[in-house]
């Protein structure tokens, strides 16, 4: 009940301010585009670093977009209403995470292969890239949400969130970039994808509880 209502509300909100969906996507593309400029435009080199670069850019894009997950709710007082409602916070937190991923994470997943192509990633790897991003980005959103729940109401900006959350992103980065490199080199990928899926399951089940606890702590609980 509170789950469906929250998902619906988040989607509605996103329709009313589409910039919040599009901005992270632009940021993602922009960070990836820095690498041909900063490293080298050579195809052989780019194709080798492509998995890592795309994943690091995705990490940062998710991080900065998730920063706003509770900002407007906190400032309008809607978050307080959520906290006093006689409902377990787990479901609304899960709903917010999923809706946020749908709106900001999924677009990243979809342009991922395009960016892979631009960085000369072998075409054979692009379906793996898509799949890896599909399994990995919700994990990033979920873990990021924990960090945000702890910093809600602080005026510290994105850098504090980055310090809290980036170390927690390492496993996703390692397996996510690893599996794409495997695919690019023609190695089997199922094992690593399974690990990414396991991380996804674990984070989606545990993170909402942590987010709920974090929100209560930040409200002064």
């Amino acid at each position: 009940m509170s789950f469906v209502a929250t998902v619906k509300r988040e989607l509605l909100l996103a329709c009313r301010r589409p910039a919040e969906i599009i901005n992270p996507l632009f940021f993602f593309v922009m960070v990836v585009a820095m690498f041909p400029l900063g490293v080298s435009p050579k195809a052989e080199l780019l194709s080798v670093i492509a998995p890592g670069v795309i994943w690091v850019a995705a990490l940062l894009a998710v991080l900065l977009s998730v920063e706003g997950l509770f900002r407007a709710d906190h400032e309008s007082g809607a978050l307080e209403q959520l906290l006093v409602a006689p409902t377990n916070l787990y479901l609304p937190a899960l709903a917010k995470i999923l809706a946020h991923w749908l709106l900001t994470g999924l677009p990243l997943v979809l342009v991922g292969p395009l960016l892979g192509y631009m960085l000369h990633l072998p075409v054979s790897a692009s379906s793996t890239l898509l799949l890896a991003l599909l399994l990995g980005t919700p994990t990033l959103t979920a873990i990021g949400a924990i960090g945000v729940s702890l910093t809600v109401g602080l005026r510290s900006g994105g850098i504090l969130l980055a310090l809290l959350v980036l170390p927690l992103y390492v496993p996703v980065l390692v397996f996510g970039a690893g599996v794409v490199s495997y695919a690019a080199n023609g190695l089997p990928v199922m094992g690593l994808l399974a690990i990414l899926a396991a991380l996804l399951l674990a984070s989606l089940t545990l993170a909402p509880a942590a987010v709920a606890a974090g929100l209560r702590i930040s409200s002064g609980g």
Partner: protein
Amino acid sequence: MTDIPVLQTRALRCERDDRELFAGLNWCASAGEIWQIAGPNGAGKTTLIRILAGLHGFYDGSFTWPQWLQSDADPREKLLYLGHKAGLRDELTPLENLQWWLALHAQQADPMAALAQLGLAGYETVPCASLSAGQKRRVALSLLWIVDKPVWLLDEPFTALDADGVTLIEERLRQHAASGGLVIYSSHHRFDDAVRHVRLGGKQVELA
């Protein structure tokens, strides 16, 4: 109504930024009463209401809601809290905002009638961003007509309302108390001689 109090605090004490806001608050509130929490700016009115609502956990002493202790229920089931900030997302319409609240409270109700009663007929599907502060406040307060809860915790319910609005809300508070509810509100405005008060900000908390 039994004579078991609805709310009972024991030696409640709260400190913020190294300053004691209140201490030794032993307060007993029963069904059918209206309590005003009074005191100057920064005295701790909002903090006290947030403690009662379960939003602020850094206090000493304790409080209970004895009338429901037996049933072991989540006190939030019984509480309606309206904060300083209206709690409305500007991008959503009053109707959409209220529907989300109702879903959170697992209640079914039709907000249209209540909105009309508060003079918001015609504004139900306008984004809240284009409502005035008073109108936003009315949207939030329409919950008093919609949601069915025995205890109301209201932080500054009269701000931004005009005289009509104030009368309307006063009437509603009286009605709720008369039907056996408990109203606790913070404000500088004492609208009725029957309203009892907790005064913060002095040397000692004053109960009357």
